[in-house]
């Protein structure tokens, strides 16, 4: 049996020789040879119904064209995706799609990332020959986040299969038959309570399923994309942040079989407005009596270094699970240089996990922040309650990174001899700081998060920070250099190496090793064994 599974077969696809394990589907073997085969109904995360008939290819010696999405390669196959017959078949199928499909492209949310648009442009018929009236279905509100445009639907059933196989919440079905087929919910039972359903918008190959949140917000070709990590829970779903005008317009999952497959939860997807906040700290502020006075970085940092060198009494460090390993790592290092007690952080926790049944490795974890696990590896202790409130006390020297202190009384930290606040927004308690330093959010910088299972994952900058905001690792790196703790790191990769040199769990890891799929830190925990979620 083991032999059978590992046995390889060799075939040729468009003349290119490919060797793949027996049982590999043609579409996947072609992918390995760098040949893309047009398809709609096939999706690597779902079962394949072979119904769109776009992927038909010619196999020499086989009379009928075969669907590449379900047919497996056999030894010696000579497969042609560009033969006359295969091309004609695709062209014919595209013409069938265009019979009823309204060319709404100028107003369609999918335009620019629509597979129908792409394929028709590539090899569709020049003109449609339909002279008769199109079928009109109109739009339907599916509840939840979804609007359905029946006229644009190409009946690939990806959405139905996602709900059945992955969400395992059979809320969608095909009703009617033949050309009258449409996707529908069961009477009034919409998608409202299904926590992963917005994934169907991503996998819909055309503009038939629309996310109400993104509706008419932007043309997709106007968006910039940055690979990132969802910051909204400790699962660490790989995502893409789509921005325009320096504002996040939407979050979309990025495939990573080790973490989130092709999916992400709706909670994470739609929790991004905070990244667009406008009430940001614009410049370093230094206390002068009762006032905070804006200053340039250099004088502010020199003054702060001075104060740090003269500090007296106990030191308390507060970190943030919404910020990177680099930021918090250098903060923890600063704490230990200053002789502080164990650093602390606060984070919100949900009551339960929300598991994706078809890919149970993915859950909206209890910890509603990306980096709690990273912080515990850096020696931080979690304080406060499940709403991320309470648990903080003042100290002689107080250094706070990222925590907005929103729940704390207006006089919090007033009795400290030195209160340094590195953050994004100025809530009343933070106004008591002697130094207020504007730092960038995770979305505005490069860095890493450590997810619940100890996987260190990289993210890239998606937004421009306010002009004077700096990544916290940069600010802290300069402070450490000022305290004669080595040179300030030049970039995030360097900062990460520095963190690794201080903290064993990250030792030996580099950005190259982490790559786009992440790497486990040195003390991972088994899934389900806890670990800060």
């Amino acid at each position, binding site marked *: 049996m083991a032999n059978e599974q590992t046995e390889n077969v060799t075939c040729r696809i468009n003349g290119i020789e490919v060797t793949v394990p027996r049982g590999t589907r043609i579409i996947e073997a072609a992918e390995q040879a760098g040949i893309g085969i047009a398809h709609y109904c096939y999706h690597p995360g779902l079962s394949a119904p072979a119904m769109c008939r776009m992927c038909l290819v010619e196999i020499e010696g086989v009379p009928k064209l075969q669907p590449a999405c379900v047919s497996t390669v056999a030894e010696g196959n000579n497969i042609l995706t560009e033969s006359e017959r295969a091309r004609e078949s695709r062209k014919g199928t595209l013409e*069938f799609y265009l019979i009823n499909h309204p060319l709404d492209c100028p107003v369609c949310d999918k335009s620019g990332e629509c597979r129908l648009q792409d394929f028709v442009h590539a090899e569709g018929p020049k003109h449609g020959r339909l002279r008769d009236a199109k079928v009109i279905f109109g739009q339907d509100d599916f509840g939840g986040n979804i609007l359905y445009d029946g006229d644009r639907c190409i009946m690939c059933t990806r959405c139905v299969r996602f709900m059945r196989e992955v969400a395992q919440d059979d809320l969608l079905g095909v009703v009617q038959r033949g050309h009258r087929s449409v996707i529908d919910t069961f009477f009034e039972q919409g998608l409202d309570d299904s926590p992963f359903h917005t994934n169907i918008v991503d996998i819909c190959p055309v503009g038939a399923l629309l996310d109400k949140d993104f509706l008419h917000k932007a043309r997709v070709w106007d968006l910039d994309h940055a690979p990132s990590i969802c910051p909204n829970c400790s699962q660490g779903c790989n995502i893409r942040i789509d921005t325009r005008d320096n504002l996040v317009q939407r979050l979309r999952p990025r495939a990573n079989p080790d973490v989130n497959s092709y999916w992400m939860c709706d909670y994470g997807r739609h929790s991004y407005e905070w990244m667009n906040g406008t009430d940001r700290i614009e410049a370093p502020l230094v206390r002068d009596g009762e006032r905070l006075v804006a200053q340039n970085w250099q004088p502010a940092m020199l003054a702060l270094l001075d104060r740090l060198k003269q500090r007296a009494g106990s030191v308390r460090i507060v970190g943030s699970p919404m910020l990177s390993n680099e930021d918090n790592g250098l903060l923890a290092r600063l704490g230990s240089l200053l002789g502080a007690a164990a650093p602390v952080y606060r984070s919100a926790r949900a009551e339960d996990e929300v598991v994706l049944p078809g890919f149970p490795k993915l859950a909206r974890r209890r910890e509603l922040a990306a980096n709690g696990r990273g912080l515990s590896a850096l020696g931080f202790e979690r304080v406060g309650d499940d709403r991320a409130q309470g648990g903080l006390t003042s100290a002689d020297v107080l250094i706070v990174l990222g925590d907005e202190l929103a729940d704390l009384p207006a006089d919090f930290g007033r009795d400290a001899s030195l209160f340094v606040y590195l953050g994004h927004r100025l809530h009343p308690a933070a106004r008591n700081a002697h130094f207020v330093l504007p730092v960038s959010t995770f979305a505005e910088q490069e860095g890493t998060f450590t997810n619940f299972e100890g996987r260190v994952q990289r993210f890239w900058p998606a937004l421009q920070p306010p002009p004077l905001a700096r990544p916290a690792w940069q600010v802290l790196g300069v402070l450490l250099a000022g305290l004669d703790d080595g040179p300030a790191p030049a970039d995030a990769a360097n900062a990460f190496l520095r963190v690794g040199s201080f903290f064993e769990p990250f030792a030996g890891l580099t950005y190259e090793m982490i790559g786009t799929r992440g790497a486990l830190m040195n003390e991972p925990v088994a899934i389900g064994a806890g670990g800060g979620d």
Partner: protein
Amino acid sequence: MAYPYKHERETRVLTEAFGDPAARTIEGWKKYGGYEALRQALGMAPNDVIEVVKASGLRGRGGAGFPTGVKWSFMPRDDSRQPHYLLINADESEPGAFKDRELLRWTPHQVIEGALIGAHAIRAKHVYIYMRGEFFEPAQIVGRAIEEAYEAGFAGPDMMGSGIGIDITLHLGAGAYICGEETGLMNSLEGRRGQPRIKPPFPAVMGAFSRPTTINNVETVSAVPHIMRRGAEWYRSIGTEKSPGTKLFNVSGHVVRRGNYELPLGFPMKDLIYDVCGGIRDGRELKAVIPGGSSVPILAASECDINLDYESVAAAGSMLGTASVIVMDDRTDIVKAVRRMVEFYSHESCGQCTPCREGTEWTAKIMRRIEAGEGTADDLDTLLEVGRNMTGTTICVLSDSCAAPVASSIAKFRDEYMARIRREVPAGALTV
């Protein structure tokens, strides 16, 4: 004219009891030799039963004409732990086809006996008779017959003291043509949408309820008891070498006597029309024949001098299919007739495959337009090309079946289409 009408040139094997209501009961059926063949088969090893059917050359009567014994031999032989199923396809709904319902109505025990023999041959312990929901009367009759067969110990555990137990369930569908396609039938039986499945896996490997399954037509299994009783040689002595046995020809259209006629395969089509069926109604001329149900290419009158067996009809460019012969006289409006068929396929397409879902209705739209006098000469090219794109590109052959009558009618009756397009024919309303 008594019903059902019988003609002296018929070779009545399966239809011997047609017209005798008593044959619907077990006692009545025994007078025709009922259940002897089952007793005989239960005393034989399953493989030996298969060998007899193989030797008889019986071919499936559901349309494709695949040899039944060979089909049975595809079922796994060694694994007795895993349940197998025999499904009897009683969904008949191809336009023009009405033979299975008559077998079910007149000879329910013949169907049951054949099914039990088949089940024994393929080692199935359960037979499902999947019947179209609209067959209200046949369902009553077959349901009662199944009860009787259980009471008599011919079905159920330890049949006729043989130690072999086989159950029979009658399952009523909701009435969809696509549930007659074998894998669509399996889905429907399992309570899912009636949609054909992709092959492979083939039913004999993974069929109903993910188990090895054989699907047979009602007429196919009805022939089995006779073959068992009288032997493969006897069966081969009827019909032609490659198409042995008798076949029910269900003739509709413009003949004097429409109906079911059991004739040896290879029977001349002209004799069927002019002799058995009494010729064309009202003394009209023959214009065209669809020999095998609406899914096969149409034959012009000049092409009808052929024998009705699988090979001869194929040689003439059509198919014997279910031998549902649709006869059309010289007053037939071919465009309208084909438009009606196309509308049927469009209505019954399950909607999975794009070429079928979209192509059937597009074809119907063009046909309607041509019929209404709004067509253009380009439309015929479009119809042909759309049909080509619908052929061989889908999961099942419903799509091909829709394209076939269109292409063959344009090839053979182009003038009639052109007359519509040139508005030489009054358009009129789109009537049934």
